[in-house]
């Protein structure tokens, strides 16, 4: 009788993809802060920074939950995905609610940052996602020193 696989074996590709997105987010962060400062001064820069921080934490939490659940079973992945969605929406609401009355918060830049950063990072990441069985997370990069492709994040 064939062995039944009900969980993911090996490293989670979701975590690899999320970490790559966080790296890109950190690269973009200074430009976002500068743009926020141009639009709304200090308050705009702080709001953009907080919005980007929320998006990055949301992505990390999502990937961590999926990676953790995939080690348990595929059924746990389904629970973690739906439960995690509701939980993370609640966390984002709470994170915005606790700062809503603070002097440095400007809601318009914060809201725009939440949407633009989330979608922008996802679209940027799509170019680097692999559809290969050997590299289920990210596309391998061809290293300059050797002709062998090296998986991004696995060097």
């Amino acid at each position, binding site marked *: 009788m064939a062995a039944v696989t009900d969980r*993911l074996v090996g490293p989670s590709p979701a975590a690899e993809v999320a970490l790559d997105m966080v790296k890109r987010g950190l690269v973009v962060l200074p430009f976002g802060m500068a743009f926020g400062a141009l639009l709304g001064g200090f308050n705009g820069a702080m709001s953009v920074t907080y919005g980007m921080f929320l998006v990055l934490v949301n992505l990390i939490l999502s990937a961590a939950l999926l990676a953790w659940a995939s080690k348990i079973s595929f059924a746990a992945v389904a629970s973690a*995905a739906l439960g995690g969605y509701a939980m993370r929406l609640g966390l984002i609401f709470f994170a915005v609610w606790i700062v809503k009355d603070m002097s440095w918060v400007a809601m*318009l830049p*914060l809201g725009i940052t939440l949407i633009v950063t*989330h979608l922008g990072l996802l679209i940027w990441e799509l170019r680097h996602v692999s559809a290969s*069985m050997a590299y*289920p997370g990210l596309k391998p990069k061809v290293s300059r020193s050797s002709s062998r492709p090296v998986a991004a994040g696995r060097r």
Partner: protein
Amino acid sequence: MSIIASTAAQISELAQEYTPAEAKANAGASGAGMAYGLAAIGPGIGIGYLVGQAVQAMARQPESAGQVQTTMFLGIAFTEALALIGFVVFILLKFA
């Protein structure tokens, strides 16, 4: 009939308690909350369907589970963007 009459009486009492500006603010708050709740339903259904199909794919072809999970993760994040848009509309209506 008596329930309807008592409810109507309560509504008219409440209407007399608030000024038009307060009533408008209350209606705005209710509308913002309802918009956020409604905006979260669609992505919830979408994520449920997406994850269900992904789990089925992983169960049928365990060797491609990693690949499926990558696609699933990105799909969840894209679907979640819809809920985030609803949330941003909510915070702009309620807190801005």
